């Protein structure tokens, strides 16, 4: 197992989506890595056993040196991918770099609904038509270049606005010819605090049932990744609905085989654990541009999340987890908020268990 890295390469963005979890960071581009500094950090990573680097932000393509970044990863033989809102993916120069870049393995488009009305109410006016046009062109080029190794993904954050359109989203993904459809949980953070559209368990169940209904017929053409729910939903689908369901995994390698880098080059065990690290370390001492990866990785708080997520004692008071067969195999509920005496966790598992026992919701 090698290390995977999530890297927020910029907090510039040409949109301001209503549920953006990094809304508070957007525009915070002081001390953002320069192209040269970016290359220095990438060069350091190239000497390590890195499985994959995923670029996020902000909007990665909003960096004016984005094509240089693509070239850097290619020249250092680093496999990578990026998230995008798709608006800049009509730039012929960028498209050529994308298609020719053999180390680019995944492009993730964020789309919130199967039509302009739903998508644009979250992501902004006229966005849907532009993205779909750009995506179609990209997929056409990818197919012409026989880039089967380049996975095109659509990410959708489940919210009250789109929860009734998931069947249409699946059809939309098939029509676009994407490889993967990832359904994400609504996280009340950043811009989402003021625009909380998180869904109820009843809505979650509805989506599980729609996926179960469609999965068998689409699975050979579209990989569905239900990250909004937990492994118990798969059991519910198979036992109660008698329907196949895609695998659900919630792994946590924070501080061991997963790392987070921000736009300044600061290294963290996870993006959700920045505050503790910043409270106990000087930020210049955790910046990869002037420090060795392993020296940063050796600092005390960097082992906290491993100790929590792998210890059986962390979950002993959580009634939905402490008897679960998936715990610490397929499911590592986020350890960031696990503290001593913590006895509740925000998963829907207990509701699925109740349903399977014949209880009401």
């Amino acid at each position, binding site marked *: 197992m*090698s290390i995977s890295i999530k890297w927020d390469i910029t907090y510039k963005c040409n949109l301001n989506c209503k549920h953006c979890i990094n809304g508070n960071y957007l525009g915070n581009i002081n001390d953002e890595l320069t192209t040269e500094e970016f290359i220095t950090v990438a060069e350091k990573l190239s000497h390590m056993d890195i499985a994959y680097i995923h670029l996020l932000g902000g909007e990665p393509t909003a960096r004016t040196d984005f094509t240089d970044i693509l070239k850097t990863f290619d020249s250092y033989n680093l496999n990578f991918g990026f998230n995008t809102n798709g608006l800049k993916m009509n730039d012929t120069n960028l498209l050529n770099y994308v298609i020719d870049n053999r180390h680019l393995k995944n492009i993730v488009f964020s789309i919130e609904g199967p039509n302009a009305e739903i998508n644009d109410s979250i992501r902004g006016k006229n966005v849907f038509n532009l993205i779909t046009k750009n995506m179609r062109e990209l997929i056409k080029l990818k197919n012409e270049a026989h880039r089967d190794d380049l996975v095109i993904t659509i990410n959708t954050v489940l919210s009250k606005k789109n929860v009734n359109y998931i069947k249409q989203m699946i059809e939309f993904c098939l029509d676009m010819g994407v490889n993967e459809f990832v359904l994400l949980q609504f996280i009340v953070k950043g811009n989402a605090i003021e625009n909380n559209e998180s869904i109820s368990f009843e809505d979650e169940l509805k989506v599980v049932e729609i996926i179960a209904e469609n999965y068998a017929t689409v699975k050979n053409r579209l990989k569905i990744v239900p990250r909004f729910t937990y492994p118990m939903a798969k059991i519910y689908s198979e036992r109660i609905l008698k329907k196949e369901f895609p695998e659900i995994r919630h792994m946590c390698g924070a501080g*061991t085989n997963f790392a987070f880098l921000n736009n300044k080059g600061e290294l963290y065990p996870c993006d959700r654990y920045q505050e503790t690290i910043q409270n106990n370390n000087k930020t210049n001492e955790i910046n990869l541009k002037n420090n060795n990866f*392993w020296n940063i*990785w*050796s600092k005390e708080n960097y082992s906290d999340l491993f100790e929590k997520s*792998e210890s059986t004692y962390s979950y002993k008071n959580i009634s939905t987890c402490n008897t679960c067969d998936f715990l610490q195999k397929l499911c590592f509920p986020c350890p960031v908020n696990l503290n001593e005496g913590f006895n509740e966790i925000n998963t829907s598992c207990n509701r699925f268990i109740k349903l399977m026992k014949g209880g009401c919701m």
Partner: protein
Amino acid sequence: MIQYKINKPLRIASIDNDEFLLAIPREQVKIKINQDVLDFIQYLSDLEEFNEDIIDKYLLDESSKDDYIELFSSFQSEKLIIPVN
């Protein structure tokens, strides 16, 4: 005699009464160990470098020496300990 050091950083999580999960991020290796092994690793962690003779210093009696020689050898193969330069 080859000098070794612990392949830091290490990650350790308590998984049972006498069981711990040890991860070596540089090698992406995870192994289950017991309290005695953890005590020995923590002893070695405090040293800048050491060789196999450290077993004699660590053990209070000779009765388990063979076990520790075997353990030292497994540390080498797991890359928990690596040669100094």
